[in-house]
C-alpha cells in the first residue's frame, strides 16, 4: 500500500493510471448502494434508515423500528444479501483466476468440474435421505473431489498442463453429469427428484444465516490467498516457459490458485446451487473498466461480482409475482453476453 501511495505523489503519473485509481472508490460506492437498494426491493421495502436501525436493534438500540422490520432484516434480507455478495464475488474472482490460468477469456469457474462434482455430491446426499447442512457438506466435498481428480489425472498426461487440465476437467464434468442424471432417473419423482431439481436450479430463496456462516470460512480463506498472490497471476497468463524464465515455479503457483479458487467456488455452489455465467461475465466487465492487470482486476471482480449478483437477485425477486430462480436470470443475461463477446471482442 505504501508503495502505491508514493506512486500517486509522483508527477510522472500516466493518464490511465489516474483513471484506474479513481475506479475503485466508485466501484465500492456502487457496491454499497446496491446493498442498500437490495434491502429496499421486495414485498416489504426497508429504507436505508430502517436498515441501520434494525441492524443496531440487535445490539441494544431502542429506537422507533417495527418488529416486522427487524425480523425481515435479520432473517430474510440479510442472509439473502450476504449469500448474493459471497456467491457473486466468489464466482467472479474464481472465474477471473481460471481465465488467467488457462489463458482463455471464455473460461468459467466450473472448467475443472467443481459445479458438476458439487451437483453429484448433493444429488447423492438427497437420494440417501440426508437433509440440511449435510447436503451442503456432500456438495462441497463432491466439488473438491471432482477438481482433485481432474488435477491428478491431468498429471499423467503428456500434453501441456493447461491443455490436459481442460481435457480431464471436461471428462470429469461429463462423468458427474451422467451420475446426476442416473440418480435423478432412479429417484422417486414425487419427492427426491423434486428436491434434487430444486437444489440444482440455483436459487437464493432458501438462504439462511447458518449456511452463510458455514461458507464464510472457505470463501474468505480462498479469497485471501488469491488476493495476496494476485499480481503473480499476470505471470501465469504468459507461456509456461516465459513464466519460468522469470523465476516462477509455474506448477506450484498454479496448484495454489487451483486450490484457492476451488475452495471459493465449491462453497459458492453449496450456498446457491448452480448459478451460471457470473464467473464468465463479470471478469470481462471488470477488465473493460480497470484493465488486464490482476492487481486491480481481482478487487474489481470481487466488488462487481457482488453488485451484479445482488442486482440479478433483485430482478429474480421482483420481476414476476412469483420468484424466478436466480440461475435462470443470470443465464438469460449471460448467454446473449457470451454471443456478444464471441462476435465483438478480439481479446480480453
Amino acid at each position, binding site marked *: 500500500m505504501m*508503495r*502505491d501511495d*508514493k*506512486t500517486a505523489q*509522483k508527477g*510522472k503519473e*500516466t*493518464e*490511465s493510471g489516474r483513471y484506474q485509481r479513481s475506479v475503485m472508490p466508485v466501484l465500492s460506492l456502487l457496491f454499497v448502494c446496491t446493498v442498500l437498494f437490495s434491502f429496499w426491493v421486495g414485498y416489504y421495502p426497508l429504507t436505508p434508515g430502517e436498515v441501520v436501525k434494525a441492524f443496531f436493534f440487535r445490539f441494544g438500540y431502542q429506537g422507533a423500528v417495527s418488529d416486522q422490520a427487524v425480523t425481515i432484516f435479520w432473517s430474510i434480507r440479510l442472509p439473502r444479501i450476504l449469500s448474493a455478495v459471497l456467491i457473486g464475488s466468489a464466482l467472479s474472482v474464481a472465474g477471473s483466476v481460471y481465465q*488467467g490460468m488457462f*489463458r*482463455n*477469456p471464455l473460461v468459467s469457474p466450473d472448467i475443472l468440474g467443481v459445479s458438476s462434482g458439487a451437483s453429484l455430491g448433493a444429488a447423492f446426499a438427497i437420494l440417501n435421505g440426508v437433509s440440511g447442512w449435510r447436503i451442503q457438506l456432500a456438495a462441497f466435498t463432491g466439488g473438491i473431489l471432482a477438481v482433485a481428480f481432474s488435477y491428478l489425472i491431468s498429471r499423467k498426461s503428456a500434453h501441456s498442463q493447461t491443455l490436459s487440465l481442460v481435457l480431464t476437467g471436461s471428462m470429469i464434468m461429463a462423468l458427474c453429469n451422467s451420475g446426476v442424471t442416473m440418480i435423478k432417473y432412479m429417484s422417486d419423482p414425487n419427492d427426491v427428484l423434486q428436491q434434487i431439481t430444486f437444489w440444482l436450479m440455483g436459487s437464493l430463496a432458501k438462504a439462511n444465516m447458518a449456511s452463510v456462516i458455514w461458507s464464510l470460512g472457505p470463501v474468505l480463506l480462498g479469497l485471501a490467498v488469491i488476493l*495476496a*498472490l*494476485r*499480481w*503473480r497471476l*499476470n*505471470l501465469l*497468463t*504468459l*507461456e509456461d*516457459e*516465459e513464466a*519460468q*524464465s*522469470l*523465476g*516462477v*515455479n509455474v506448477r506450484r*503457483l498454479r496448484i495454489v490458485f487451483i486450490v484457492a479458487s476451488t475452495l471459493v467456488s465449491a462453497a459458492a455452489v453449496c450456498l446457491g446451487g448452480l448459478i451460471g455465467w457470473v464467473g464468465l461475465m463479470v471478469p470481462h466487465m471488470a*477488465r473493460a473498466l480497470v*484493465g*488486464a*492487470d490482476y*492487481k486491480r482486476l481481482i478487487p474489481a471482480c470481487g466488488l462487481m461480482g457482488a453488485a451484479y449478483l445482488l442486482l440479478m437477485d433483485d430482478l429474480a425477486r421482483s420481476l414476476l409475482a412469483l420468484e424466478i430462480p436466480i440461475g435462470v436470470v443470470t443465464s438469460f443475461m449471460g448467454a446473449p453476453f457470451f454471443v456478444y463477446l464471441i462476435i465483438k471482442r478480439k*481479446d*480480453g
Partner: protein
Amino acid sequence: MLLEIEDLRGGYGSGDVVKGITCQADAGEILCVLGPNGCGKTTLFRLLLGMLPATSGEVRLDGEATGGLEPKKRAKLAAYIPQNHATVFSYTVLELVVMGRAPHFSAMGAPGVRDRDLAVRALEKLGIAHLADKPYPALSGGQRQLVLIARAICQSAKILIMDEPAANLDYANRQLLMDVAAELARKGYCLVMSTHSPDNPFSVGHKVLMMKEGRLAAFGAPEAVITGETLEEVYGIPMDVVSLEDRFGVKRTLCLPVKAPGSSRNRKEEGHG
C-alpha cells in the same frame, strides 16, 4: 566469463537432443547459434534456462553452476526473450515490462515505484518510452520484440537469451533488432541468439556456435568458423562466403547458397532425395 557451457548434454525422455556442447561468452559479446531446424538450438536454450535438466555437463552463469540454482536466482542472471507473441489479455506495455521484476520480490509482492521506474528506464533505453501506455497486443511485431527485450533488461539479468529474435519480422525491423542487439552488447550485456541467416554473425556476432544434430560443429570467431565448408557440412547445401564493400567502403561478408548453372536443385542428394 558470464556464460560457460561445458560438455552439456540433455533432452527429453527419449534421449539426449543436445549431445556435448562446449562454449563460452563474456560480457559485451554476442554469441550466435547457427544450425538447421531440429539441430537442438531450442533444446540448448531450454537447458541454459533450466527448463530442462541436463543429463550431464554443466552450465555456469556468471560463475554459478546452475545445477541446483533456485529459479529466482537464475532469473536474475539470465533472461529469456521469446519470439514476439501476442498476449491473450490486453496488458499495457508498461504492465508487461514490469513483469520482468518478478524475480526481485516475494510471492505476495507487487511492483512498486522503483520497479515501475526501472521499467520506464528500460523502455527509454530502447527508445520506445512513448509506447508505455499502449496495449501490447495492438503493437507491430517489431515493437513487440523491442518490448520483450525491454522486459529482459528490466529483469536486470546480464545474460540475454533470444530464440530467433528476427523470425516473423520484416526486413527493416530485422535490421533494427540487430542494431539494438549490438548496442546492448556494447553496454556490457552478454547476448545469446539463435538465427537462421548465417550472415548475421559477421555484422553483429562476436562468436559463433554451429550445431549439427545436437553436436558441436564449430565454435569461434565468425571469420574463422563460417566458411563454405562448414556451412555445407551443417546445412547440407553448397554455399559460398563472399566479401564485398558497401557504398561506405565498409567490408561486408555474405553467405550465398550456390548451384551449378543448369542443375535443378541444390540440395545435396541423400540416398532417397
